[in-house]
């Protein structure tokens, strides 16, 4: 199908750029690209909830931060095997997600947003109170974790590891949203009432996707801790939760790739503008407002349309009731 070909080509180009460009441009850009990949992963986890499940969460930064703290603490304690600390970080964030989700998902809409925000704040204050771990200032990691025999101290090596993980997460998330589970989640998003009427109890499915997304955010957090060799409560702030939402919407929700592009845009915007002024937020705020009020689509959506890679499904060619009559007439028990 040409459709798949075009979109696949687009993705291939993006991947090729991601592989080749940053190391070519030097250490600064390699580190920058690593940051994009990490935030992209966190934003993707938000998209799983927002775009695919219809769950607007203002607390994903908490799970990101939990992953960072878990990985950081383990590393400080001497566990520097990434194959041990990173899965543990994922596990811890999934447990937090389970606890937060179990309570939050009993609410809907506005309440859900506020409750996720509130619980995230709770985790934030908790982190701030950890005197032994630097309190509000956070703590540094003596070194990055290492992967078997590969030291991750080198920025380029680390970048490629992160990139591989990002690609794996994208592939995994893609499978999940296309699976039977994914269908249920999307059905619940489209019409929860209908999903229940057909026989799917919404709560368990929402909880599972919430936990999965939490795990992905936790992995991103663990990577962030290793990237910066520094962890602080700022990684859990509600501003970051909001920024993750912004990345998703800027890049195109409901697309998995969009959030990564959104992260790239956000970080690039910040990087470029901070060269001119420390008050770059003065421009980002209105930009976000403008995107919401004036622009219909995000970066990925625009990219897809611009290259003609969008699907043209959905054009009905037959008229009701002609088809209906025909169908009814063809049934064995139908009266003529």
């Amino acid at each position: 199908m040409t459709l798949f070909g075009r979109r696949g080509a687009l993705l291939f180009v993006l991947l090729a750029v991601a592989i080749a460009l940053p190391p070519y441009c030097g250490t600064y850009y390699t580190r920058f690209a690593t940051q994009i990949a990490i935030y992209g992963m966190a934003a993707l986890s938000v998209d799983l909830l927002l775009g695919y499940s219809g769950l607007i969460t203002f607390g994903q930064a908490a799970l990101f931060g939990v992953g960072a703290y878990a990985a950081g603490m383990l590393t400080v304690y001497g566990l520097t095997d990434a194959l041990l600390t990173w899965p543990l970080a994922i596990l811890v964030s999934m447990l937090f997600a389970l606890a937060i989700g179990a309570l939050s998902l009993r609410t809907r809409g506005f309440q859900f947003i506020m409750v996720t925000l509130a619980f995230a704040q709770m985790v934030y204050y908790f982190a701030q109170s950890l005197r032994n771990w630097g309190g509000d200032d956070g703590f540094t990691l003596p070194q990055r974790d290492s992967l078997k025999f590969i030291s991750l101290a080198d920025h380029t090596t680390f970048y490629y590891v992160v990139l591989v993980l990002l690609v794996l997460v994208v592939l995994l998330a893609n499978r999940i949203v296309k699976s039977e589970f994914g269908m249920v989640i999307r059905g619940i998003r489209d019409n929860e009432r209908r999903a229940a009427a057909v026989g799917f109890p919404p709560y368990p499915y929402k909880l599972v996707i919430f936990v999965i997304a939490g795990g992905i955010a936790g992995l991103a957090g663990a990577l962030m801790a290793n990237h910066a060799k520094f962890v602080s409560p700022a990684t859990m702030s509600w501003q970051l939760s909001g920024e993750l939402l912004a990345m998703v919407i800027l890049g195109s929700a409901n697309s998995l790739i969009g959030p990564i592009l959104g992260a790239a845009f956000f970080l690039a915007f910040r990087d470029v503008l901070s060269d001119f002024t420390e008050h770059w937020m003065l421009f980002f705020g209105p930009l976000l407002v403008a995107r919401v009020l004036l622009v219909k689509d995000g970066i990925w959506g625009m990219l897809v349309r611009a290259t003609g890679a969008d699907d043209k499904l959905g054009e009905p060619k037959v008229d009701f009731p002609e088809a209906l009559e025909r169908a009814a007439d063809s049934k064995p028990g139908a009266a003529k």
Partner: protein
Amino acid sequence: MTLALLVEQLFNGVQFGLMLFLMAVGVTLVFGIMRVINLAHGSLFMLGGYFLMAALAWTRSYGLAIPLAFVGAALVAVVLEIVVLRPLYRRGPLDQVLATFGLTLFFNEAVTVIWGREPIPLSIPPFLTGSVEIIPGSAYPIYRLVITAVAIVAGLLLYLLIARTRVGALIRAGSDNREIVAALGININLLYTLIFALSAMLAALAGIMMGPLLSVEPGAGDPILILALVVVVIGGIGSVRGALVGALMVGIFDTLSRVLIPLVIQTNATSALVGMAVYVLMAVVLLFSRTGLFAAHRG
């Protein structure tokens, strides 16, 4: 822990609770009637404090500065409503959350540009300094008593407005059926602008009154906003009564827990528990009732 200290903390809790009420009632009115989530509400609290500070610096008189600060906040609210809020009425919660979040980012940065990042202390008006013995042996600041009284008066006026006036009836009607109110020839745009301005003024009032107690700084409104949201969750969306009960609960619970918990539990985890107490309260209420204590809306 003496009785006098306990009573003093109780008073503080009520006062804090009433400030939260002023914030929460604005949030719940705007959401209950206009179905808009406004995360920029905290910015209006913050701007209240900043405008007071700026007006004071300019006029050197509290008598002039306070009204000026109100006017400033009202102007900002009206412009906000027309430019940003109005298009959001028809949109979903995500758009509303993101747009108002963008506003918060903007305002937090804007005050930094104009007044810098450092917290700016505000002094209590000279005629309100000093304390009074409400219980023998315990001197309670007059200023806190005064702002408590102001908040109570504001609450009563709000109640009268909603329950007893034509405008209040319109507000209550508007929450039930937009189309009918519009069809009656009443300018719904104007009504919504008024409601929004009202909620903004309440937030600014809280900001103005808390200014001397908290000092004015970028992002000052954010923790208050979050607590106000907790209040709305506990009290139930759309319910003014719920906002009052919830606010008092949160205010008293938060204040008392900060004092009592360190007395009972003396470990390193104390400060964590203290900050988390309110959220635990919220979790318990949620377990008890999914929509809060007094939810006004069936939906």
